[in-house]
């Protein structure tokens, strides 16, 4: 061996030169679903936020990677009049991608637009408690509430509450103009969306200068795209069956995180026989969560015993309350007068957790004497039959909105749980601003719905992401549906 070629200084120099040349500044992110449009304030599709949230559009507040609410376009706020008035001071020198200034007018316009009579905002409920928006000066704006509300800062962090400019809001569906670090460039429908760095961004400049979102719905195609290097990252990778293989490959890293998706076996609480708590409890005891997580999700998922995300500090582990116990289930059924067995409809939307999980749950229910009639539905049909018409006994669905335990306080919600005690608790929760008391109330609510066996609580959906191993800064968890690229860079 000739030592001349092993000069350490030379090697180091070569490495430095090499990395300086090789550091990439672009990224291609794979997504399963293409967003139908790009206006996060005009549709419910998660894919919209997965493209635009924090990249193109920003709100007054935003979610951080850990789910905490952080300042965004508002760099500070004061809470006045015992929580019914929030005064926000806006970040100065913020411009929209078309060059116009972001001011208090835009805040008023955006929130008024979302609250308006004919608004098509999918989360209009977030704004229900807002009385009016008052412009104090171009850099100061007050939001006056109908009653004290500890949720306001959280609500304003949603993608549905981002800031738009009056001049461009109408075209946001196809030409989104926001204040974020990336500017929309082009959309090849059915294939990809491209965005480029916005050089006049007010905040910390991003390291990437180009980001492409590519839409690949077929799991096998996603796998080949990752292997062939056509996409650099797949934050919600659709083929859990080959995650182990990708993890063993040094070119890729597999990141497992949590989401806000509580996956439940929802029961129709208002229609016999599931209006009987004994029958609901029997169903709960018939379920073996580990079997479902292993069988339907290839082991990815955290068991839950109530409708709450395990990574939240207020979470209570109540899985023992509704643990797998077929004998108890049979006894309860007998007590409820169903010893000869009973038959329930089980309506399944398209995702794999529902279709694969449904088969396993059907087998588990059969074991305790409950026959199920499985019906596979498309999303549109599911919304119509199950969600709207409440024509079902059982269904499986993942509730992906953050902190959505409040749905249990709505007796008209599709599983039709009507408990005045919980409703009163959630009303109090809405106006409580003391963090400690809020935590206590959330835990009380978790207990209540677990005690009442409102639904079968299955597991928290895992976020299974795959990325090139040199790619850093992607979100590990999914506190909201987003692919925030602001901190992403290539470490080469």
């Amino acid at each position, binding site marked *: 061996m000739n030592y001349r070629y092993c000069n350490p200084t030379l090697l180091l120099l070569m490495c430095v030169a090499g990395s300086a040349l090789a550091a990439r500044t672009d990224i291609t992110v794979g997504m399963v679903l293409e967003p139908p449009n790009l206006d996060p304030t005009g549709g419910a*599709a998660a894919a919209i936020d997965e493209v635009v949230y924090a990249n193109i559009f920003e709100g007054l507040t935003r979610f951080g990677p850990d789910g905490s609410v952080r300042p965004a376009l508002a760099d500070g706020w004061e809470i006045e009049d015992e929580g019914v008035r929030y005064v926000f001071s806006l970040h100065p020198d913020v411009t929209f991608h078309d060059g116009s200034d972001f001011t208090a007018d835009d805040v008023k316009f955006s929130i008024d637009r979302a609250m308006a009579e004919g608004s*098509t905002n999918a989360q209009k409920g977030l704004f229900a408690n807002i009385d009016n928006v008052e412009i104090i000066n171009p850099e100061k704006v007050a939001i006056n509430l109908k009653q004290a509300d500890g949720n306001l800062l959280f609500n304003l962090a949603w993608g549905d509450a981002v800031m738009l400019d009056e001049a461009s809001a109408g075209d946001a*569906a196809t030409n989104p103009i926001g204040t974020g670090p990336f500017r929309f460039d082009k959309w090849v*429908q059915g294939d*990809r969306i491209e965005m480029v760095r916005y050089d006049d961004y007010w905040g910390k400049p991003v390291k990437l200068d180009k980001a492409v979102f590519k839409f*690949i719905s*077929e799991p096998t*195609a996603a796998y080949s795209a990752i292997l062939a290097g056509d996409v650099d990252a797949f934050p919600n990778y659709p083929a859990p069956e080959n995650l182990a293989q990708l993890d063993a490959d040094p070119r890729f890293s597999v990141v497992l995180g949590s989401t806000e998706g509580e996956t439940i076996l929802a029961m129709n609480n208002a229609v016999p026989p599931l209006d009987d708590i004994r029958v609901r409890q029997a169903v709960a005891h018939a379920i073996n969560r580990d079997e479902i997580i292993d069988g339907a999700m290839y082991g990815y998922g955290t068991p839950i015993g109530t409708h709450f995300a395990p990574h939240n500090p207020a979470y209570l582990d109540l899985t023992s309350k509704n643990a797998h116990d077929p004998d108890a289930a049979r006894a309860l059924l007998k007590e409820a007068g169903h010893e000869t067995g009973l038959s329930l409809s089980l309506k399944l939307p398209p995702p794999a957790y529902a279709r694969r999980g449904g088969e396993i749950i059907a087998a588990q229910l059969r074991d305790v004497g409950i026959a199920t009639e499985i019906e596979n539905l498309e999303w549109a049909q599911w919304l119509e039959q199950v969600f709207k018409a409440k024509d079902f006994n059982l269904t499986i669905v993942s509730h992906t909105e953050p902190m959505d335990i409040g749905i249990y306080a709505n007796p008209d919600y599709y599983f039709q749980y009507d408990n005045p005690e919980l409703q009163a608790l959630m009303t109090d929760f809405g106006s409580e601003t003391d963090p400690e008391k809020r935590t206590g109330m959330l835990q009380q609510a978790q207990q209540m719905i677990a005690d009442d066996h409102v639904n079968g609580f299955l597991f928290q959906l895992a976020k299974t992401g795959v990325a090139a191993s040199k790619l850093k800064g992607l979100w590990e968890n999914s506190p909201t549906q987003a692919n925030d690229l602001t901190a992403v860079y290539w470490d080469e």
Partner: protein
Amino acid sequence: MLHYLFRRSVALLATLVVASLIVFLVIEVVPGDPASYMLGMNAQPDTVAALRAELGLDQSRTLRYLHWVSGMLHGDFGRSYTYRTPVADMVADRLWVSLPLAIYALTLSTLIAFPAGIWAASRRGRLADSAVMGFTQLGIAVPNFWFALLLVMLFAIQLGWFSAGGFAGWDSGVLASLKSLTLPAVSLALPQAAILTRVMRSSLLDVLHDDFMRTARAKGLSARQALLRHALRNAMIPVLTIMGLQFSFLIAGAIIIENVFFLPGLGRLIFQSIAQRDLIVVESVVMLLVFAVVMVTFLVDVAYAWVDPRLRHQRR
């Protein structure tokens, strides 16, 4: 010839009218409201009502049908509910992928099938014939998506010659675009070529024993000359029919291959639109496909008349 064309055109128009009615009715009957789909689970009823009004879904069925048909006659296919862009533009974008892909695949399959079919027919019963027949058997039996996956594993993942899918876009150059269509075209072409080879061979064998072939040989033509000059032309009608069917299939039916290679083609557009209850897109695209299929059939009919003069002079 004119009379023949006229009769075909009337049939074409009638097909289109009936098809438009069926398409509209079938799609309207399918449950699922586009507005509630778009707004999701947390939407409030007044929000859904507002969106329904915005999309024009609150009008009566008859009105919407008439509106749709009269729009189409003006070349206005309506505006997609979900994408909020004109359907015509969306379809045009997708056609720029689907049409070249279909032509590419059909060209490949013709280039394989014609020589292979002729060769097998001229060597009937010999080793070459059996070999070609064996391969076509395999080509028909192998599902094209599985073949596509094999191509991806070899050429994209192992060798890295092609990307695993996606479409470069014509603005990034003709060669780059054709390159991204190559693996999909090959996977579509092979099963088609297998079928076409068999049709070509059996159709040729049928005419080889006709009287005019004996006459041709008696005139002094070699077997090869007789085959190429006389038999081939007479054997073309079944082959053209199959090609027409295959081409119509390729435009809209490439959906599985489009999914494997994540190509933004027409098939995927329909698939997505059905899931999203983007009714107007589904209706218009299906109608367009009906039109395309009817047109291809019409052109094939015209081509019959061109290869077979007897059809041209048919009178009633």
